[in-house]
């Protein structure tokens, strides 16, 4: 029985299993076939007055997702786990970057990976080849991971205390910006083959991210990409954003990225409640 939620839609699959347990029922005890005029909210029927009423909600539309995300965040905090949500367009080199990162962190940190894609488990297979535990979440027609999917993926993945969980979101610079997964940081990956104006074209994602990895810098000599303009554009959207230039292929700048991860993990551990097992 699932403890993360009370629901599931048929399109989402976690490693091939359909996530469709306990269907929703929204039945209401209305006696059909007979009319009870006194069943309305006022408990009475007044000729000429309808029982239409106004309900003031003032509720955040994403509140349900935010509840799941908060639960994930609490789990990460309690167990000293650093969770990073990696977001980018398709083809920015996220998976290659992750494979390289895991290789570099091997022996120092325990990396785990949640892979989000619409279909196939190709990316999780690539990650598992490095020896790191990975789980694939297929979102079906969905364009982003949400807090609920990640909660389930964590149950399957069971990361150990003090580990690092990389969540590779669906390749999409639009929708994942709005869905909190409970991560410590969103990290946007922008490759130099994409155009330096991307932070302005997709401002929500760069506003939501704490770090930009400018990837594929080994290709810069062959391109007209203006690194300074790209960084300036990212800062227009988010003055506090940090930018690291890396090449996952050659390894240039990757040590800086790994140092950033270790620093972020130290912050996460420092925030653990007193009495938690020492790492």
């Amino acid at each position, binding site marked *: 029985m699932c403890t993360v939620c009370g629901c599931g839609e048929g399109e989402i699959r976690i490693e091939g299993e359909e996530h469709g347990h306990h269907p*929703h029922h*929204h039945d*209401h005890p*209305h006696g059909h076939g007979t009319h009870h005029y006194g069943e*309305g*909210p006022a408990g009475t029927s007044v000729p000429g007055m*309808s*029982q*239409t*009423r*106004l*309900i*003031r*909600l*003032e*509720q*955040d*539309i*994403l*509140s*349900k*997702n935010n509840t799941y995300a908060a639960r994930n965040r609490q789990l990460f905090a309690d167990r000293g786990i650093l969770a990073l949500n990696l977001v980018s367009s398709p083809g920015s080199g996220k998976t290659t970057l992750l494979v390289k990162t895991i290789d570099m962190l091997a022996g120092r940190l325990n990396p785990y990976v949640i892979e989000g894609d619409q279909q196939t488990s190709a990316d999780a297979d690539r990650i598992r080849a490095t020896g790191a535990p990975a789980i694939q979440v297929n979102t079906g027609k*969905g*364009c*982003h991971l*949400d807090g609920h999917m990640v909660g389930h993926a964590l149950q399957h993945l069971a990361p150990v205390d003090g580990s690092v969980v990389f969540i590779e979101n669906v390749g*999409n610079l*639009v*929708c994942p*910006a*709005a*869905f909190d997964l409970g991560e410590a940081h969103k990290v946007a990956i922008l490759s130099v083959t994409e155009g330096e104006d991307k*932070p*302005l074209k997709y*401002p*929500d994602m760069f*506003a939501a991210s704490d770090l930009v990895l400018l990837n594929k810098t080994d290709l810069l000599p062959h391109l007209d990409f203006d690194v300074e303009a790209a960084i300036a*554009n990212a*800062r*227009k*959207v*988010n*003055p506090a954003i940090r930018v690291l230039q890396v090449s996952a292929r050659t390894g240039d700048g990757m040590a800086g990225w790994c140092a950033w991860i270790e620093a972020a993990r130290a912050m996460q551990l420092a925030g653990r409640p007193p009495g938690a097992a020492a790492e």
Partner: protein
Amino acid sequence: MHEMSICESILGLIRDQAKAQDFSKVKRVCLEIGPLSGVEIEALKFGFDVVMRDTLADGARLEIIETAGTAWCMPCGQSVPIGQRFDACPLCGSHQLRVTGGDELRVKELEVN
């Protein structure tokens, strides 16, 4: 593209409320949406009708209150209006802005019976 799932979230909220507050039909849904919420209002209107079909909110009227974008300009030390996240301060031209309003994405009220 996530306007459809936003609409499904709205339907989820409506269903929760239907249970809690005992109603079976929604006549009007009023949302509050800011220019920085990342939601395209036209796409949301389209998705709303599709998602609400054959539910307790089938045919419900959708009302959208569009809020204003505001930011705190650090050099000016005051609140200024903005239309998009990468806008410069209209007073001093700086990008040292912290968004303070305009990312609302809220169900404000429901008219039900």
